[in-house]
């Protein structure tokens, strides 16, 4: 007797195909119906960043990424803020010295919803890798190189949010603070320069920096370790509906270069012996533990 889970899988996996001639006929009717509807008024060029912000989920994920960016760049603007004996500039400068970091970002639409998840791996050489939904997206120097859908096991157009993450994070030298503020959804962050929050600090070894949201009494907090001066967490909270974002930043051992090689990934994608999990974390050193690596990189 198969289990309920196996029965669910059996039903989900029951595939259908469609006749191509009928496909063409239906698509033709759709195009006719579309052409016969009211003409388009707006001819503005696509505003992809604005589009990202149309989705509140993507907007807050992007805000998380931008705040991570702020950790990298704020030091360049001389924002020295005392936090006990740790200055914000210390944190940003220390972050700039790490060769590699990993960020795990969880977003909840509201207090009752399940969190959605995004993962980011980034090395100092300009390489980035993002896992969003079923996609693994590779980037270099702010450009998306290739994107793959793990479920379909094929190369696809990159997820728009993943592409923006790669673009924004990989070009810190080109950032302007003013531009970033404008990007953060029309001034939703009033105070983008984090200030120390002594009330939120729960231990002597943790320093908390605080930034306010404009449209809501909500806030963003960045947690850094006092001794190492490294940021380890980010938390955002919107009061109105309990929208939350939590990001955990860790600093594992830098993976081999092949972890950022989309060609090697494409080859492994075709190997059916590789499970979806092993593909998502392929060649990365720390997929939950230091001594675990999915795939064997060539020596």
């Amino acid at each position: 007797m198969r289990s309920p889970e196996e029965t669910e899988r059996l039903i989900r996996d029951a595939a259908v195909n469609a006749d191509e001639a009928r496909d063409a006929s239906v698509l033709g009717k759709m195009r006719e119906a579309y052409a016969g509807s009211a003409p388009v008024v707006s001819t503005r060029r696509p505003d992809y960043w604005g589009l990202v912000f149309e989705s509140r989920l993507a907007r807050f994920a992007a805000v998380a990424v931008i705040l991570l960016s702020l950790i990298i760049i704020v030091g360049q603007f001389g924002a020295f803020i005392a936090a006990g004996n740790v200055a914000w500039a210390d944190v940003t400068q220390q972050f700039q010295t790490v060769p590699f970091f990993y960020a795990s970002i969880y977003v909840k639409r509201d207090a009752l919803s399940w969190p959605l998840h995004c993962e980011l791996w980034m090395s100092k050489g300009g390489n980035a890798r993002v896992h969003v939904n079923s996609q693994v997206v590779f980037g270099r120097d702010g450009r998306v190189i290739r994107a793959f859908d793990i479920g379909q096991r094929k190369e696809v157009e990159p997820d728009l949010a993943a592409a923006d993450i790669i673009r924004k994070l990989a070009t810190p030298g080109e950032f302007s603070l003013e531009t970033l503020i404008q990007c953060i959804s029309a001034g939703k962050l009033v105070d983008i320069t984090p200030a120390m929050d002594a009330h939120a600090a729960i231990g002597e070894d943790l320093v908390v920096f605080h930034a306010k949201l404009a449209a809501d009494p909500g806030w963003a907090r960045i947690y850094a370790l006092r001794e190492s001066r490294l940021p380890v967490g980010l938390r955002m909270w919107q009061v109105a509906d309990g929208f939350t974002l939590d990001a955990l930043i860790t600093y594992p051992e830098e993976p081999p270069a092949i972890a950022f090689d989309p060609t090697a990934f494409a080859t492994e994608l075709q190997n059916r012996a590789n499970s979806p999990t092993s593909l998502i974390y392929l060649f990365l050193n720390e997929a939950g533990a230091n001594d675990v690596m999915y795939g064997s990189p060539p020596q």
Partner: protein
Amino acid sequence: MEDRVLVWRLNRGDATALARVYEKYRDGLLRLTASLLSDRAAAEDIVQDVFVRFAATARTFRLTGSLNGYLATCAANAARNTLKAARRRETTGIDEDIAGASDAPSPERWLISSEQFARVSGAMGELPPEQREVVTLHLYGDMPFREIAEWQKTSIKTVQSRYRYGLDKLRSLLNGEMNT
């Protein structure tokens, strides 16, 4: 995110996005309606109608939830209406096939079932309509129980219960078939 981009493109007159919407949701909608109706021709007509209606309103369409959920709900509503109409015809003594109720002719076969889908679809036909709706919308329409409960105008506990009973029955039916 991709759905928002597609709707955004359609809002601005980019007809090429229609093909992507169609490609992305065709199989899911065909499976959903074929499972709800156990009638291939009627299911095909409904899916075609859902796509064409969506295209006709795509320039002004506003996406508030998921596009998949929207299209699945449209298809499920149409399937429910088709079944109601068929039941009315039965009670009034009019002997007409469900497929005959659709306006659009279906000259060629659109849906090509795999052997596995044919078995699953046949087993779905054995379920009471409410259970079949819940199982189909959840597994083929990716709709959460909360949304199905709103659609069926009942409580989420009832929906979860219908799903559990429906799945148990399917498990029994499919095991029986597989073992023969």
